[in-house]
């Protein structure tokens, strides 16, 4: 299969990578796991002049807990490392479970969490559960760095606020008060399928009430989206099947899915309703799963 030619770079450190990206500007494409970039290059959707490989940047390939901050996940961590992480499995099993539903073992051993975020596609499986867990991200460039809530990173289908020269280096899941979270993905097969629709939720249960809830939908709009009307409805409400069903209705009403080969917009709205209800019930009853 044809592969376009490019200039290949292997910066040795993060600062070297930033300097190189600043110099090359929009002519450079960043190579992390390659499962998306090389695919796009093979099918003729991408022909970068320069490919900047991050393979030497071990400094952003680890998962650790930092007191006062939470769990910090290096952007180059691959999906298999996420689902095999004892730290994540123990605290927020919902994230390893989401990583595990993403793709085949072969892809999970290559693809990175940073790539899954930076691609900005609405069917990506990790952003919904990360946003439900209030994740923040760190973007670094030669001229400085900035942090933001992950949910503010996406601005359209395959569009994000990342600027040329910026690198996503880490994702932080803050220590939190949530009592449960989960991601339910509906795909056309059990393995290797993109989400027709996916719903991630986190809940904070207090007695028989929901103190707070976050509901995040995948493949339900041009970007990953929060169902804020449903969240507002649930806040402070007594937990009941009726309340969770109403939250599902509100989430579906707010969704703006498209017709695609994987499912019609109407079908996806129905999925958003049902999966929201199920995900809330699961997170309320079972914790971080």
């Amino acid at each position: 299969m044809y592969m376009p030619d490019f200039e290949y770079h292997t910066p040795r450190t993060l600062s070297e990578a930033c300097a190189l990206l600043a110099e090359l500007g929009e002519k450079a494409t960043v190579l992390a796991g390659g499962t998306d970039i090389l695919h796009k290059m093979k099918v003729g959707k991408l022909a970068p002049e320069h490919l900047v490989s991050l393979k030497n940047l071990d400094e952003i390939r680890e998962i650790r807990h930092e007191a006062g901050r939470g769990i910090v996940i290096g952007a180059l961590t691959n999906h298999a490392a996420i689902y095999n992480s004892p730290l994540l499995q123990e605290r927020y099993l919902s994230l390893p479970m989401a990583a595990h539903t993403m793709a085949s073992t072969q892809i999970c051993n290559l693809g990175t969490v940073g790539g899954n975020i930076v691609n900005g596609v609405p069917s990506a499986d990790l952003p919904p559960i990360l946003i439900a867990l209030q994740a923040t991200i760190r973007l670094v460039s030669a001229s400085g760095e900035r942090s933001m809530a992950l949910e503010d990173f996406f601005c359209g289908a395959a569009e994000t606020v990342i600027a040329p020269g910026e690198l996503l280096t880490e994702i932080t899941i803050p220590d939190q008060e949530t009592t449960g979270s989960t991601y339910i993905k509906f795909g056309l097969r059990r393995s290797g399928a993109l989400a027709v629709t996916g719903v991630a939720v986190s809940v904070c249960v207090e007695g028989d009430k929901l103190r707070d809830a976050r509901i995040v939908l995948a493949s339900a709009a041009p970007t990953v989206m929060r169902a804020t009307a449903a969240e507002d409805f649930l806040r402070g409400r007594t937990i009941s099947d009726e309340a969770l069903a109403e939250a599902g209705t509100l989430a579906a009403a707010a969704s703006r899915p498209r017709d695609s080969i994987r499912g019609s917009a109407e079908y996806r709205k129905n999925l958003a309703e049902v999966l929201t209800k199920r995900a809330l019930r699961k997170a309320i009853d079972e914790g971080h799963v």
Partner: protein
Amino acid sequence: MSQVLTDKDGVKRYLITLNVNGDAHTILVKGNAILTNVLRDQLDLTGTKKGCELGDCGSCTVLLDGKPVDSCLVLAVEADGREITTIEGVSANGALDAIQESMINHAAVQCGYCTPGMVLSAKALLTRNPHPTEPEVREAIAGNLCRCTGYVHIVEAVLAASQGRVTPDDH
């Protein structure tokens, strides 16, 4: 950083070392060379198959530092210095691996095109988890498509290999 050589036409080639099946191969590759092609065309290891070439079918599966990956989505330059196991490296001292014996005995090979990838995915599984359950076997080979749809015998063969029964039960 690997050594870069530029020829008279200005084409850059990288001097890389691939440790394949225990042998270190130092070779020259272009930046855009895909690992599958380098293994097959430069190292003559044609057991690694080319199917979809887009990371869907798993027929190009190799173990990179012991973990299964689709070699069609790996640049050879990215694998510089790393350990690669291809199907040619699974047998040892002229004897087939238990998974290979078991696949033959369970008629788990039909057209054979997916077989190298299947064996490597199974090998990685059994190395990490010597006594898997049937769902664990199915999950481990979920990234390897068999267009003959011979999954039942493949799963049986891997389970049998893990239990030391490479000869099939009477059917």
